[in-house]
């Protein structure tokens, strides 16, 4: 029942392989060590190109945490706000003040600047 699909897949993969083979056969190329050397704008690179790059996601994490925690707390708070009254308002106020300190810290760490 699935023979057609199998044939179709085989033909697809086979055709791609044939194209790759033809390209390899016809195109002139060299694949020696000096030909694979990376270009470092002139001189010979001293170290291997594998090196770890720090993307500095911690700033994004900081902002995400600040605003996400705020929302996570605010939904249940909004449900009981009318019942609890002023006490709930004060509690949320304190919570927001603490979060704002975090936002100020993120601001100082230049988390809001796009590079």
């Amino acid at each position: 029942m699935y023979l057609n699909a199998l044939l179709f897949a085989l033909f697809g993969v086979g055709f791609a392989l044939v194209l790759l083979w033809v390209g390899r056969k016809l195109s002139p190329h060299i694949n020696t060590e000096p030909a694979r050397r990376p270009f470092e704008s002139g001189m010979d690179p001293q170290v291997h190109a594998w090196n770890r790059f720090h993307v500095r996601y911690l700033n994004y994490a900081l902002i995400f945490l600040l605003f996400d925690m705020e929302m996570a707390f605010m939904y249940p708070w909004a449900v009981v706000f009318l019942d609890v009254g002023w006490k709930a308002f004060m509690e949320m106020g304190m919570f927001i003040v603490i979060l704002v300190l975090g936002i100020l810290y993120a601001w100082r760490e230049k988390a809001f600047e796009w590079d």
Partner: protein
Amino acid sequence: MGLNAEPLLAHLRRFAFASVHAFPILGWGGAELWRRFRKLQAVDVSYGPHGADLFVFAGEIPVEWEEHTRSLFETVPLPRLAIWLRPDWRCEVPTGIPIAYVIESGAFHRLNWTDIRTRLLDPDNGVNKPLLADRPPAPWRGLGDHSQGGEGMMGGKPYGRPMAMTADDIDDLSLDDVPMALGPHFPNLPSGLELELRVQGDRIRTVEAVRNHFPVVNIDANGSLQTKVGIVNWLTLAALRGEPVRIADLERARVCSHLAWMADFLALSGRDSVARRFRHAFDDALVAARVGDIAKLIRRAEWGGLQQQLRGVGVTDAKEAARLNLTGPVARASGLARDGRAKDPAYQALDFAIQTETAGDSWARWRVRARECVQSMELIRRAGETLSEAPPEGPRGESSKNADGLRTPTTANLAALKAHLFTLEWFEALLFIASLDLDMQEAALR
């Protein structure tokens, strides 16, 4: 198969290129030749040898460059060809790579591109084969427990190169500290300038060394030097010897130099189409160029966020500019009213006023040069045949002779480079280096 496919393939290969990509190596006088060659629009520029078809030597190539240009050429994929744009003085053919074509500086318009393409695609052209021995930079295969080329995780040398070690960055994080050389053949930066840097991610940690790959040339010993360093320096050198120079010639050289700098700078900042307009708007002698045209072109270039991009990049304030003894537009952009022309009675008679900015960043340097272009066009019109007797201010600044020899604007402004490059991010660093308008040929003069 009895069919001979070779003629058909040879025919098909001609269609392989929509356009030829060229990677330049600029020697003495090479920047000028390359600029003229690009104007033909017959080639596209490749910013690395891996994307190139033509390897273009322009100008007189110092023999010291033989080894590293050969290993650069080896990374150009097949089919490939090396050509040489010969300067108009007598000099040696670049060594190390078989040169297929020598193009005389006056013969750019008579080039036979069909022939060049045919030679490029010819399997027997002498360079369409490996030129260097197939050896890794250091032996590594089979060494170590996992064949990584050494002991331990960081001790390996995969593919013959060691891994970068770590160092603390500005946030006290231990990150890979990668030694890398910027230049001497990065097409967007001055040819011959090599910076030995340590980078962490895209941030420069330290500048270990600044090197000039042009060998030192003594200006008194060499008779052929006048042409070798191009018209700009030639005028400066003539004035240093005390010969009077026509103000119109000096100012024309300044506008040409500034416009060429602007074109390269715009290309670097990602504005290729405007850069092309700068290259093609005027010929080298500025014949038929009008003040209005140049001002319009500059305004066009400043659209689209150039100011936002350049503001605050590589700031040098007035105090520091004075301490580092900077010169030319770089000093004037920091608010120092330093201009050799202001002291010259001939210029004073033409109502010359020094153009300054105060911010000292890359945008200020752009603005100073932009305003000087317009001012110089006015001066050319007003000056007529007036001669200047004082040692003049060149497009890059003032040259002077002292005990050590010659102090050129590039030698002076290289100090700003050393002082400000570290902690910059990669692209800012490139913009900053370009904004100083360095010419390493000039820095090689003694």
